[in-house]
């Protein structure tokens, strides 16, 4: 695999984000321009005068990567140049502050492929909640406490928002499923117009898990059905990644510090049941299970 993000960047050891970037760019190839908003990527890969990027890359602000990419695409179109234009962005910039620019970019139909690496919080500023943070997650702005189980709100459904904009290609992916991710990037490129891919991307610092288990955690998100893998083409659900053995959500929650409180607090089981319900709803909604497959019980 060709690595378009050079080693020597400063992301935390065990971070999934550089892997996401490398997988995306490996699939896209060198004929690619990337725009990135403010966040962990920018800070860890471009400390002046160094840069880890082997493709042309631009950062402008926290909220405008989609608009910057729109302008790049418009200029390329004007010059009759044919390069892939990608945004690679965190969930905070995507689901929150950048929403207006993204909506505009989708609406204008720019041929820009937008990849959100979803680590489910604002990591660069120290693990604050984003609207992609799942319920019951402890973050520094929604900490668990005597009367709080952490983030009280559901996760914003950004892929559905993209589908509602009639974005021709919308998919979810996971850093634990590199073949699937690469295939989706290639498919996104093959369909003209905007595309949106949201990649589950565990953050060792914000999620608090043991170094070396990044991919395992990401796989558990999929196997518990908390992170369904699916793709929409022209508004139609055209593919889902089926789960052979559906794991209980506890397996995923237990592996991470951000959910520790659920196993310690009174009423925590009730919250875990709510999360299990979410996973079960995903399984039903997207048809994630093979017929007759059973949910396995916890390994412990």
């Amino acid at each position: 695999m060709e690595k378009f993000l050079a080693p020597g960047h400063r992301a935390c050891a065990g971070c999934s984000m550089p892997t996401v970037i490398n997988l995306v760019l490996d699939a896209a190839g060198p004929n690619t321009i990337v725009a990135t908003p403010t966040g962990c990527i920018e800070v860890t890969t471009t400390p002046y005068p160094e840069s880890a990027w082997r493709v042309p890359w631009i950062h402008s602000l926290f909220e405008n990567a989609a608009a910057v990419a729109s302008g790049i695409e418009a200029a390329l179109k004007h010059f009759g140049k044919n390069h892939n234009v990608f945004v690679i962005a965190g969930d905070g910039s995507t689901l929150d502050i950048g929403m207006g620019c993204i909506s505009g970019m989708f609406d204008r139909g720019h041929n820009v492929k937008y990849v959100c690496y979803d680590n489910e919080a604002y990591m660069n500023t120290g693990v604050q909640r984003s609207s992609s943070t799942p319920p019951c997650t402890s973050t520094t702005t929604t900490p668990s406490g005597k009367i709080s189980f952490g983030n009280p709100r559901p996760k914003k459904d950004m892929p559905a928002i993209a589908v509602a904009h009639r974005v021709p290609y919308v998919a979810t992916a996971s850093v634990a499923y590199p073949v699937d991710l690469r295939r989706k990037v290639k498919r996104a490129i093959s369909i003209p117009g905007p595309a949106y891919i949201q990649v589950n991307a565990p953050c060792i610092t914000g999620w608090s898990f043991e170094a070396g288990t990044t991919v395992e955690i990401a796989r558990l998100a999929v196997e518990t059905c908390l992170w369904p893998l699916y793709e929409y083409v022209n508004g139609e659900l055209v593919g889902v990644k089926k789960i052979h053995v559906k794991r209980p959500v506890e397996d995923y929650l237990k592996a991470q510090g951000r959910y520790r409180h659920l196993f310690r607090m009174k009423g925590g089981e009730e919250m875990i049941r709510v999360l299990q319900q979410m996973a079960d709803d995903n399984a039903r909604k997207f048809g994630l299970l093979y017929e007759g497959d059973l949910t396995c019980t916890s390994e412990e």
Partner: protein
Amino acid sequence: MKMIAKEELSLKERMARMKVVEGSYAVAHAVKCCSPDVISAYPITPQTHIVEHLSQFVADGELDSEFLTVDSEFSAMSSLVGASAAGARCYSSTTSQGLALMWEVLYNASGMRLPIVMTVANRALSAPLNIWNDQQDSVGARDSGWIQLYAEDVQEAADAIPQAYKIAEDPEILTPVMVCMDGFILTHVYEPVELLSQEEVDRFLPPYRPKHILDPENPKTFGAFADPSYFTELRYMQWDAHRRALKKIEAVAVEFAEQFGRWYGGLIDTYHAEDAEVMIVTMGSVIGTIKDCIDDMRSEGLKVGLVKIRSYRPFPTEALRKALKDAEVIAVIEKDVTVGNEGALLTDLKAALYNTPTRIPVIGFPAGLGGRDITIRDIRRVVDKAIAARDRGIEAEMEFLSLREDLL
């Protein structure tokens, strides 16, 4: 006033070229002649007509540009950051709240040294909501690293566009330029204007050939983050580019005058300044009124002169020192006020004179805020107050002009 006209046209030829058009049309036409690759703008009064005219040029196939109908001014400037980094000649226009919404991106454009050109149709900032002209918006953006040129009339606002590109795109400058024109007063007025011709502009303005662009053949990183060991130097280089722009703005003005026969001043221009005892300093469309008033006052024997600021950023410190050194009193009229201090231009001007032997009274007048007319009577009042300050000492360093006491 200097008149340079190497390629003299006969009066008849000139008259034949004159058309009575709306200010916004003249500007849009000038933009068209500069053939921007990407235009991105969002409607806001009184700027709207400019982008509507440009849209029409594109729709009629007269202008081959990508016209982005963006979701906001924030996206407008952001998309031009991307387009400019990809090598495109870019244009936008906005005003007031729109410019305020761009604020964050203005710093990006200048910090990344992207030579974007934008017209600001000057308008007040709310609250209270007000769509009429003053210059609080662009004056508020004076520290964003953009070059700011102010136009006195429609012809100047239009002629400033090719000049702006020539300044911005100079490899020694690479700095975005705002051309500021007073909203409504200039954007919506119909005046006889000599419309630029494509051939002439092509001769004046070379195609944009950027050295650093987003190109997979030669990957470059734009917008890296710089820690304290680098940041100061990067700002210094920006600051230094403005210093170089002082000369460039003048040179381009001369070049323009030589080719087109129209001169508006370089960094500044003066009117009856040579022997003036009372000197008025200002910028924008009020200059027309002031010139008329000066004509009257001169016939009465009053030695009044004018300094027009054409380039507010970079600030023409040396030019002002020279132009003002023999004055006896200076009155600044400006369409903005720094709440908590005084007019921005007043402060800048006093600062420019401080380390010189010039020790004359300098007084300031915020005027024409939110679209209030500045009348000949107002100008006379300013001159009276200036003379009083000279003869009897400064009473008030700054005073709102024609304040309606009955409303306070």
